[in-house]
Each structure stands twice: as structure tokens, then as C-alpha cells.
């Protein structure tokens, strides 16, 4: 299923396995996949099919055994740990199922987190954070702590944190998995806006067919292999 050479993400012959004692458990086998810039891709599949592992490999938070992942011209599979962290902070925005916000930081401070690793001044950081929070509709909750926000609002803060560095790709692992239907719909609408309004590339793992409906492309994984 490999596509053209102009794709933003090019995955070739990607394999990953885990060791449990002496046992080797294959998780992904010979995966090849292309994702174009501005594409909204949904990865679906049963539990244990390897979709979260594939997402982690694309996001550079796990290492493949074999194969290559070229994103924006950089083969992330070959980067050393330190370089990978720097690449990640500049090029990937993360949206997690359980938001993963720092409970002791306000919405503003949570969104500011990735910018602290950049060379931006305090004033520039403030402009970026305020813009990101406006984008997700939470400009009025800037000083609220996560515990003072609803699940949907927390996920919007997480999205603001993911987009604040203007990354190449956004990866979302079950972004609606912990939300009620209304909040889930709001989050999906927001993600849809990020793709259509701002040209973002999103790779989303989901079990939710309604979430997958928003995607341009839906790929299924089963037993570590792409089926459709």
C-alpha cells in the first residue's frame, strides 16, 4: 500500500516485536504505509492488533526492530534518543486518551510546556499559548487547573498543547475514549477544523466508528498487519 514519494509520512517494512521472558511476541509485521500532508487518518482494529504501537513508532516514542519511518524527510527510526526527543518536541503534537495534563499546572502552563524547550521569549510564548487556547475555545479558562475543567475541556487543553508548537503531525490515541458523546463530538469537530482549517495532518487510533467517520482515510490493523 505504499504511495507516492511526496507523502509526509512514509513507512516501509516496519516490524516490531516484544519480548516476554524467552518468548518473542510479534506486534507489527512488515507494515508499509503512506500518509499525505493534511490527511486525517484513522487506525482501527481490535485490542492487541498493534495500532497504538504503530502510532508510538510514528510519534518517535518507541523504536522499531526493522524498517523505516520517514517523516518530513527525516528517518525517525535511525535517530538517537536525544535527537529523537528534540525531533519529537518540534514535529509531533500528542493527544492522549486520558489527556495527560499536569495536575499542578494551569491550562496556560500546560499548553506552555512544549514551548519551554524552544528559544521563544516569554512574551512570544504567551502569544502562542493564548492563540492555541483561543483556537480550542478555552481563552476564558486560562488559569484553571485540570481538576477545575470537564473531561472535554481537559482534552481541548491537551489539543491546544499539541498544536501550540505548530507540529508537522498530530497523533491522537483514542482521543474520545474517555469522553461522553457530546464532548467527543466537540473534540472530533475541533480535530476536523484543525485538518480542514489549518491543514494539519492527524493520525488517530480509535475504536469508535463515529470518530473514524471524520477521517479521510481509515486503515484497519489485525494481528500486526494492515488489512484494508
Amino acid at each position, binding site marked *: 500500500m505504499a504511495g507516492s514519494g511526496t507523502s509526509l509520512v512514509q513507512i516501509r517494512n516496519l516490524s516490531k516485536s516484544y519480548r516476554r521472558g524467552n518468548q518473542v511476541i510479534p506486534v507489527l509485521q512488515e507494515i508499509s504505509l503512506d500518509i499525505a500532508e493534511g490527511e486525517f487518518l484513522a487506525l482501527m482494529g481490535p485490542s492487541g492488533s498493534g495500532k497504538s504501537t504503530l502510532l508510538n513508532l510514528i510519534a518517535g516514542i518507541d523504536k522499531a526492530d526493522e524498517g523505516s519511518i520517514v517523516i518530513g524527510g527525516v528517518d525517525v527510526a535511525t535517530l538517537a534518543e536525544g535527537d529523537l526527543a528534540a525531533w519529537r518536541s518540534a514535529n509531533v503534537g500528542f493527544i492522549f486518551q486520558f489527556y495527560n495534563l499536569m495536575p499542578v499546572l494551569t491550562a496556560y502552563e500546560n499548553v506552555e510546556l512544549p514551548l*519551554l524547550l524552544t528559544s521563544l521569549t516569554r512574551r512570544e510564548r504567551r502569544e502562542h499559548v493564548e492563540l492555541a487556547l483561543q483556537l480550542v475555545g478555552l481563552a476564558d479558562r486560562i488559569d484553571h487547573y485540570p481538576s477545575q475543567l470537564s473531561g472535554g475541556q481537559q482534552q481541548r487543553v491537551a489539543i491546544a498543547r499539541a498544536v501550540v508548537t505548530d507540529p508537522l503531525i498530530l497523533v491522537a490515541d483514542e482521543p474520545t475514549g474517555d469522553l461522553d458523546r457530546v464532548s467527543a463530538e466537540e473534540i472530533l469537530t475541533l480535530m476536523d477544523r484543525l485538518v480542514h482549517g489549518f491543514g494539519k495532518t492527524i493520525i488517530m487510533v480509535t475504536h469508535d466508528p463515529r470518530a473514524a467517520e471524520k477521517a479521510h482515510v481509515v486503515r484497519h490493523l489485525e494481528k500486526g498487519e494492515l488489512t484494508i
Partner: protein
Amino acid sequence: MFILKLIIRNAFRHKLRSVLTVIGVAIAILAFGLLRTLVGLWYHGVEASSATRLVTRNAISLIFSLPISYKDRIRQIPGVKSVAYGNWFGGIYIDEKNFFANYAVDPQTYLGLYPEFVLPPGQRENFIRDRKGCIAGKRLADKYGWKVGDLITLRGTIFPGQWEFVLRGIYKGAEKSTEERVLLFHWDYLNETLRKTIPRRADQAGFYIIGVTNPDQAAAVSVAVDQLFRNSLAETLTETERAFQLSFVSMTEAIMIAIQIVSYVVIVIIMVVAANTMAMTARERIAEYATLKTLGFGVGHIAVIVYGESLAISLCGGMLGIVSTFPAANWIETELSQFFPAFSIRPATIYFDLLAALMVGAVAGIFPTWRGATIRIADGLRRIG
């Protein structure tokens, strides 16, 4: 700045747990400080002793006295510059809890041998002139509010009766280690009274203090003194003032060693408790550390956050312990003055307290820091929910 903010907020995220840990560290540091002060007190006399002074006492035991006639014979030994003499009086001021050292001494020679007892001009002469006069150290005078000219009454325990003295001077210590909680009065006053009331106890000195012309001669003079009185009715034992003080300390050395060990054990225990707390904290925050790593924060950042929290908590406890040490020492000094008349905290004890608090934080943070810094992101993120 951000790291510092995160450390402080994290440190008091679980308020009850953090407060209990801080209190635990504070109590440990308080106990450590007090125990070290106690040990230091024991060796205080040794530190204040001089190399040019010898102490001669009865060879059988300190509770037996020596004839006053020994004074002139000792004085004739080559190398002896001056000889003072005195008796431990053991008088009680108003109540038994008001314990302080009080000696009957020969003022002229005794003050000559103890130049570290500094008296204001005129007070030394007034003391020497007045047979019922006495002098007291500044800390002792301050404690009981004594002023020069006050009448001080001591109840004799070794020498029965009510003994009245007029305070003729208040001395200050020339050095920090000089004892300022001593009362000295005329040996003649004691002796004259004894001649009338208990004649068999008169003309006896409890000890002689010998000033030597050269510290190098101390050993030779000691031998000469003891040889002079060998086979007499009251044989002598002469040693340097330091050895004399150490002989007191050595009687209780095993207890002091045990106290020192206990002081270190207290710190080790709180280290383990703090390490357990930090390990629990780190375990709960693994997903947060993984998230920070996901966002691009490095191992160093995570290590500083975890280690900083451990140090922040233990330093808070340490500071609280140090601050509590002063009122605790003051309370001991006031309420238990018969056992600990000069229970004062030294700067070195505070430095040790601070060092101990730092060590608690440093050791307690090792495992959680290693765990937080080395966790694989994918594993850490799985801990959510």
C-alpha cells in the same frame, strides 16, 4: 523557573503525605541535633582544658581530699610556676533543679591560673579582698538575674549549712569554650567555718591545680609530684587537665558512643521512610514523567524534578527541625538544668543538621529519580487510567 515551580507544587500536592514526611524529617533532625549537642556537652570540659595546667587529686578517689600542706611542697618542684587549690562545694541555690558548679578556691592563685576568666577592672580586687565574696560566670548571673553586690545563699550538701556570699564580680569567658556557669568563692571562708563546725574536715583541699612553666615539662612535673607523696597517707594522682577531664568522660564513654550511634540511626530510619514516600510519589507520577518525556523533556529534566522534590521536602523538614532545636534546647536547659546546665546549640550542630537533611533528601531521591528518568515512554503512558 518552570522546573522550580513544578518541584514546589509537586512537593505539596499530597498535602497530608508531604506534611507528615516533613514532620518526620523535622523530628529526626531535632533528635539528631539534640543528641549531638548532648555528646558535645560531654566533651566540652576537655575542649576547654589547658595544656599548661595539671590537676592533682587523691590517688584513691576524687572524693578523698589532700592535706593543704601539700601546696608548699608541690610549689618547690622544678617546673612548677604556680599552685592553686580548691574544693568541690556542691551547694544548691534555692532548689535542687538549679544546678551549677561551685568551688571553694584560693582566689589569687586560681584566677592567676585561669586567665580565661575575665573580670572587669576592680571586681577581681574586690573579690580577693572580701572573704565572703564570690564571683560568677556571666551566663550564670544572667540566668538568675544576679547583680554585683547581691547576696547569694547556697545550701551545702557536702558541707552542711546555709552559706552566704556577696557577689563581687561577674566574669566573662575569654574564649567561646570557657565555662561561664561557675561560681567561685574563698576557700578560706569554707576552711574557717569547717574549723569551727567539723574540725576533722578542715585544712583539706579536694584538688590542686598546678601551673607549669612549659607544657613540655607537664609529664615530668606530674611524675615528680606523685613521687613526692608516694607511700604517704594521701598518695596523689597528677595528670594534665585534659586527661583529668577525659577521665570523667571515659566513665560514660560507652553511653556517649551509644548516643552517637542512636543519632545516626535516627537519620538512617528517616532516610528509609523518606525514600519510601518518594518511591510512592514517583510510582504515582510515572505517567506524568512519561508525558514530559513525550513532549521532549530529557532525562536531566525529569531527574531534577524528582530529585528536587525529594530535596525540597527533606530541606523543609530539616529547616523545621533546626528551628525547633533552639526552643527545645532552651526548654531542656530550663527544665532539666540539674542534668544539662548549659544545653546550648553550637553552629557546627546546625551545619550537621543541615547536612543530615540534605543527605536524607539526596539518598531518598536516588531510586525514584532513577526510576522516573529511565522509564520507557510507552511503558509510562500505559500507567494512565
